[in-house]
């Protein structure tokens, strides 16, 4: 069985919550990151995350919930997002976002596309595929920047482990 409309809107609204938080996290990091080039990278990507949230938020309306409807993920996953937000050091911020969190988010988006009916839910699929193209570009931006200003990637196995420990992130229906 494919996903129902209710399953779809819950997943899309959860992704929207995450994209809004990523917008806010990169926004909070912008004035508190010293390196100018990294600051500019965050400034640019804030709007990418905002646009993703906006597209997803328009889709929630089509799936019979209010426009720009967000759904908080499972509590333990919110903790992982907040651990990302709490990173202070520039190298760690870059690694946490571009090496751990975005690749994990990409996998979750792909899992959604695999799980849904590509035909009936094509509007969601098109949005997610556009987001995936953006996320790929954003990772490339970050990698090129790190090579240019010689910021070394910092392994963050604990954050990666906590993220990947969640097979599902949509909060259980109350």
């Amino acid at each position: 069985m494919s996903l129902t409309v209710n399953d779809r809107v819950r997943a899309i609204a959860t992704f929207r919550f995450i994209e809004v938080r990523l917008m806010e996290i990169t926004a909070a990091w912008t004035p508190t990151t010293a390196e100018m080039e990294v600051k500019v990278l965050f400034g640019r990507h804030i709007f990418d995350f905002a646009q993703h949230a906006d597209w997803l938020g328009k889709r929630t309306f089509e799936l019979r919930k209010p426009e720009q409807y967000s759904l908080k993920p499972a509590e333990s996953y919110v903790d992982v997002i907040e651990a990302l937000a709490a990173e202070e050091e520039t190298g760690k911020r870059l690694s946490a976002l571009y090496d751990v969190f975005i690749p994990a988010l990409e996998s979750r988006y792909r899992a959604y596309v695999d799980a849904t009916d590509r035909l009936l839910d094509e509007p969601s699929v098109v949005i997610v595929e556009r987001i995936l193209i953006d996320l790929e570009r954003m990772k490339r931006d970050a990698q090129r920047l790190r090579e240019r200003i010689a910021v070394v990637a910092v392994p963050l196995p604990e954050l990666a482990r906590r993220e990947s420990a969640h097979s599902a992130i949509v909060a259980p229906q109350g």
Partner: protein
Amino acid sequence: MKEIGFVEEAGLRLRAEPARDEAFKVVRRDKEMAEYDGSGPEAQRESVHRHMTNEITSLDIAAQCLIEFPDAPWGLRMELARQCWDESRHIAALHRRLEEMGGYKGEVPISAFEWQVTCALDDLAGRLASQNRTFEAGAMDVVGGNIREWRAIGDDATAAVLDAILADEIHHVRFANRWIKQLAAENPRVLMKVAMAVRFVSHANQTLQADAGETTVNGKVFEDPHSRIPIVNVEDRKLAEFNDEEINEILRQAGFRSLVPEQVHA
């Protein structure tokens, strides 16, 4: 490009049928269609086939509105273009389901009644009132009930297709409601066009629908037209931005007059 003209049918000036591929036999009256009692395999396939061909008609109508009203506000044209995309997916999904059920395109006769009536109207607000606010809103009522029926007979696959379609249809009705309001606010004559459209649709429906006792090509006897009105899908009509008074009026017409509050006239 070849224009689609008009035809005369039972004293009505209707739009000639849109192009259909050879697999389909296109008819104009209910009695020329096939309908089956119960929930046997033929009835199931006919139901999905009918949904599928109605979606083809909806696609044609939305596309024709884009062509014939190039000066419509851009926001409305975007909605119509989006509707074309939605209807295309609905057609493909229902065709896929029909084939899974062992059916095929053209298995039973089809009609393009909604097209013939809607595209006979010469203004966009009237067409939105006819197609989106009347036919699609009516379909919303039907599909709401159908989903439960498919689930009841254990066909979750068809129910899932209709569940997804219903979500889209709600928005088609909603955008029509929004745009009619906006167009009427900008130009009060729009309301007159809408009223004329609604009257024309109602007249065409009464003229062309099968009377009690008539039979379909496969021998099913039609009941009285009043007993064929579906249960009103109140919840989704609210999502589609019908107001309470409009919903009450539809409930009254559907035979629930005693249950709804009387309209208060100023």
